[in-house]
C-alpha cells in the first residue's frame, strides 16, 4: 500500500531527526552549547532539561500518532460507521494533569536561575564595565579603572564582570554566546548583566537585535586574561589614555598628521578627540578592523578607502583618501600599541 510506505518514510525521518538532535548537543563548536562560564552553564542546564522533557513528550505523541495512523486507516471495502465516542473524562484529566506537572518541573529551576542571574554585583570584587552600543560598533568603558576602549572587550578570567549596557542610537543586543545569554542595549535606559569567563581565552560577541543595514556585521571580540595580566593591561591602558604615545616616525608621522587633521574629530587617541567613532588608543593591538576583518595592512587600507563598502550604512564617511595617505595612516594606526 502506498500510504503505508509513506507512513514508514515519515517515521524514519522523525527518527533521523531525533538522532540529529541527540548528536547535535555534543558537537564541540556550538557556541551556546559549549559554555565557558557559570552563566552559560546554568542556561545550558535549563536548555538541556527542557529539551529532554520535550523529546519525551514528543515521543509519546508520536507513538500514539503512529499507532493510530497505522491501525485505524480505512481498509479497502471497509464499511459501517465507527463508534461515536463523546470523550473520556479520565483520559482528559490525565493529559491535563501530566503536562501541568511537567511544567512545574521546568518552572522551579527556571525561577531559581532567573533570580540568580539577575543578581547585581556592584562591589569591588566585580569589574564594572559600561557598554555603549553604536551603529555598528561597541564602546567599552571601565569607570573604576579610568580606561576606555572599543570593539575588543578585555576582562579578567575567573572573576565576575558587571556590565551596565546602554545605546547611543537604536536598540542593539549584547551577546557573548559562550559566556551567557544576551541583554538589549536600550537608548535612554541602562540594563545590567553579569558574566564570567572561567578560563582565559578569546570569545566571540555579537549584536543580536536588528539595528540597521550592517546589523549582521556588528561583531566584537572578548579577551579573557589571567587576573594579573588584566591588571597589567588596565594599568598600561590608563597610562596611555592619560599620555598617548606622541612619538611617531617616518611615514607613521605623516599618518599622524593626517589623523590629527581629518580623523580626530571622531576618533580619540587617549583622552583626546571626538567620541563619534571608536577610541583607537590601542588599535595596533586589535585583532580585527571594525570588528570583522583581520587587522592587517590590506584590510585596514580597504576600510579607510571605503568604509561603506565594508560595513554598509555605518557612520564613518568615505574621506576620499589618496593611496599614500592611506598607507601613512595604516602605518600610524598600526603603531598604536599599549602593552609593548
Amino acid at each position, binding site marked *: 500500500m502506498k500510504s503505508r510506505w509513506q507512513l514508514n518514510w515519515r517515521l524514519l525521518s522523525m527518527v533521523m531527526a531525533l538522532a540529529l538532535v541527540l548528536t547535535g548537543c555534543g558537537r564541540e563548536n*556550538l557556541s551556546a552549547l559549549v559554555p565557558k562560564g557559570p552563566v552559560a552553564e546554568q542556561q545550558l542546564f535549563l536548555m538541556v532539561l527542557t529539551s529532554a522533557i520535550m523529546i519525551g513528550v514528543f515521543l509519546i505523541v508520536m507513538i500514539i500518532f503512529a499507532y*493510530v495512523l497505522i491501525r485505524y486507516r480505512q481498509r479497502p471495502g471497509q464499511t459501517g460507521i465507527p463508534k461515536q465516542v463523546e470523550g473520556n473524562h479520565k483520559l482528559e484529566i490525565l493529559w491535563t494533569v501530566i503536562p501541568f506537572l511537567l511544567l512545574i518541573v521546568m518552572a522551579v529551576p527556571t525561577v531559581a536561575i*532567573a533570580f540568580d542571574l539577575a543578581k547585581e554585583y556592584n562591589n569591588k570584587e566585580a569589574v564594572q564595565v559600561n557598554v555603549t552600543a553604536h551603529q555598528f560598533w561597541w564602546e567599552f568603558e571601565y569607570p573604576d579603572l579610568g580606561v576606555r576602549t572599543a570593539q575588543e572587550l578585555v576582562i579578567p578570567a575567573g572573576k565576575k564582570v558587571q556590565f551596565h549596557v546602554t545605546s547611543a542610537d537604536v536598540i542593539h543586543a549584547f551577546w557573548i554566546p559562550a559566556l551567557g545569554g544576551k541583554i538589549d542595549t536600550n537608548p535612554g*535606559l541602562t540594563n545590567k548583566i553579569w558574566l564570567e569567563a572561567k578560563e582565559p581565552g578569546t570569545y566571540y560577541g555579537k549584536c543580536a537585535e536588528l539595528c540597521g543595514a550592517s546589523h549582521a556585521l556588528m561583531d566584537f571580540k572578548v579577551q579573557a586574561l589571567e587576573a594579573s595580566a588584566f591588571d597589567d593591561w588596565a594599568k598600561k591602558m590608563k597610562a596611555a589614555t592619560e599620555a598617548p604615545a606622541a612619538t611617531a616616525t617616518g611615514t607613521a608621522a605623516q599618518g599622524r598628521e593626517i589623523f590629527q587633521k581629518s580623523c580626530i574629530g571622531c576618533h580619540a587617541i587617549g583622552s583626546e578627540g571626538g567620541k563619534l567613532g571608536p577610541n583607537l588608543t590601542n588599535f595596533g593591538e586589535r585583532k580585527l578592523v571594525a570588528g570583522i576583518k583581520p587587522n592587517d595592512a590590506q584590510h585596514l587600507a580597504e576600510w579607510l578607502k571605503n568604509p561603506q563598502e565594508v560595513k554598509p550604512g555605518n557612520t564613518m564617511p568615505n574621506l576620499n583618501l589618496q593611496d599614500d595617505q592611506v598607507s601613512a595612516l595604516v602605518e600610524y594606526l598600526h603603531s598604536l600599541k599599549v602593552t609593548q
Partner: protein
Amino acid sequence: MSDHTSHAPNRSGLWDWLTTVDHKKIGILYLIAGGFFFILGGVEAMLIRLQLIYPEAKFVAAGTFNELITMHGTTMIFLAVMPVIFGLMNAIVPLQIGARDVAFPFVNALGFWLAALGGLLLNTSWFLGGAPDVGWTAYATLSSNHKFSTLGTDFYVLGLQIAGLGTLIGGINFLVTIINMRAPGMTFMRMPLFTWSSFVTSALILFAFPALTVGLVFLMFDRIFGANFFNPDAGGNIVIWEHIFWIFGHPEVYILILPAFGIISEVVSTFSKKRLFGYSSMVFATILIGFLGFMVWAHHMFTTGLGPIANTLFGIATMLIAVPTGIKIFNWLLTLWGGHIRFTTANLFAVGFIPTFTIGGMTGVMLAVPPADYQYHDSYFVVAHFHYVIVGGLVFGLFAGLYYWWPKMFGKLLNETLGKWHFWTFFIGFHLTFFPQHFLGLMGMPRRVFTYLPGQNLEMGNLISSIGVIGMALGSIIFAINMVVAAKSKKAAGNDPWDARTLEWAIPSPAPEYNFAQTPLVRGLDALWTEKMAGNKGMTPAEPLGSIHMPSPSFLPFLMSLGLFVAGYGFIYAGQWGTYIVAIAGIAFTLLCMLLRSLYDDHGYHIEPDEIEEKGVKA
C-alpha cells in the same frame, strides 16, 4: 420609503466583484488577495534563502535584505495568512451556523477593501523609494526616527493602520454574526469547532488590534509630527513600543493559529468518520488559549531588561498555554483512534499538522524559559520555532481547510493526485528548510543577518535550509495548477462530497446567494450528521418557504477604503509636499461616503420562493 428593488440588481464582471456584499464572494476576494500576497511573501522568502545559501553571498545588498525580511514578515502575517483565514471564515462560518448572511454585509465588504488597499499601499513602497527595513516588529528608535529609517517605515505605519482597521471591523462582524445569527437550535455548545475558533479569534482581534492602532499612531506622531513617545532625549521610552507591539503581537499569533485548530478539528473528525473527541474540552481549551494569550506578551521581551519578577511571571504564564494546547493535540489523536481514517489531501495536511505543530509548540515552551531564552532570543532558533507553528501549523491547516472546503466554495473538487504531490513536496521542503534552523540558532547564528562569515560551521545548515524552500515553492506551484485543473474540470462536487457532519454540507455547492432556502432546525452537535443518523435526507426546515431579503450591493466600501488609501499617501508625503491637504481630503472623502451610507437606507431586495424553485434548488 418603500422604493426598494425586488430583483437582484444585475451586475456582472468586475463591477460585481467591486460592489459585492455577499459573504461568499467576499470570501473568495479574501482568498485571491491572500493568495497573491502569499506568493509575494514567498518570493521574498526565496530571495532571503538565496542570499543566505552560502557565506558572504552578494545576491542582495544589506539594506535590501532588511527590506526583504521586513516585508516578508509583514506581508505573510498581515496580508497573506490573515486574509486567507478571513476568506475561509467568510465562506464557511455563516453556513456552519445556518445563517443567510453575516450580520453586517456592508461592513464585511468594507473590511476586505480596507485590508486589501492597506496591503497595496504598503507594497507600493517598493517602487517609491524603498520598503520598510526595520523588521516586522519595527522597534523604536530604529523605526521612530527619520535619522535611522527611510520613508518605507511610514508606508509600514499607514499601510498597517488601514489594513488593521479592516481586520478590526471584520472581527466585530463575525462576533455579531455568531452571537445573533445562529439558526434555531444551534446553541453555543452545538457550534462546530471552526465556528468556535473563529469566534474566539474574532474576540482576540477585537481586543488586540486597538493596541496596534495606538502603537502605530504613536509611531506616526513621532515620525511625522515630531512627538516624543520613543525619543529618549526628550523623556520618551522605547520599551513602550515593545510592550504595545507585543500586547497586540502575541494575541495575533493565536488569532492566526486558532482558526487552524478549528479546521483540523473539522477535517480530522470528518475523515475518521467520528465525532470530535472531547468536544466540550476542545471548546474550553480554545477559550482558555485566547484568554491566556493576553497575559504572556512579555515573553518576546525577556532580554529587554524587565527584571526577574516580570520575566518569570510571564514565562510561567506562557508555559501554561501548553496545557490547553496539549488537550487539543490529544483530543485529535483520540478522534482518529478507532475511526476509519481516509487519507484525502485535506486529511494529510491535517494529520501532518499534528507532529509538526507539536515540535513548534515544544520549542515555544523551551523559549518560555527566560534564562534559556537569553541564549535563544533573536537567533535562528526562534525563526525555526515560529515557522514550525506558522508554516507547519497554520499554513498546513489552511491548506487542509482549502482542500476540504474548496468544493463548497467553488463547486469543484481539487484533484487528489496533484493534492498528494502538493502535500509531500511542501511537507518535505518545509522540514528541510526549517529543521536545520534550530541548530543554526544554537550555534550562534542571529536572525535578521544579511550574511554570515565562513568558518563558523553554519554553511551546511544554511545550504540545506535554502534547498528546502524549493520543495515549498514546488508544492505551492502544484497547488496553483490544481486550482486551474479543478476550475477546468467538468465534474460537479455535489452537496456533500466527504460524507461530512456539519451544516454547510446540507446545501448545494457552491452555496446559493441566500445560503439556506429555509432556515434549518438544528437538533444536535454535528447538525447534518444528526439528521443522517436519524435517517433523514437533509435538514428539517425551521420555517416555511418564503421570500428572502438580501442586502444590495454597494460601491461605497471600495470608495471609503480608497479615501483612506489616498489619505495614507497624504500623510506619508506630508513632509515632502509641505501640506496635509491630500490627507485631509482623503479622510473627508471617506467621511462623506459614510454620510451617504447613513442617508440612503439600504432596503435591499427580495428573492421570491418561485425564483428559488426556478433555480432548481430544493430545500
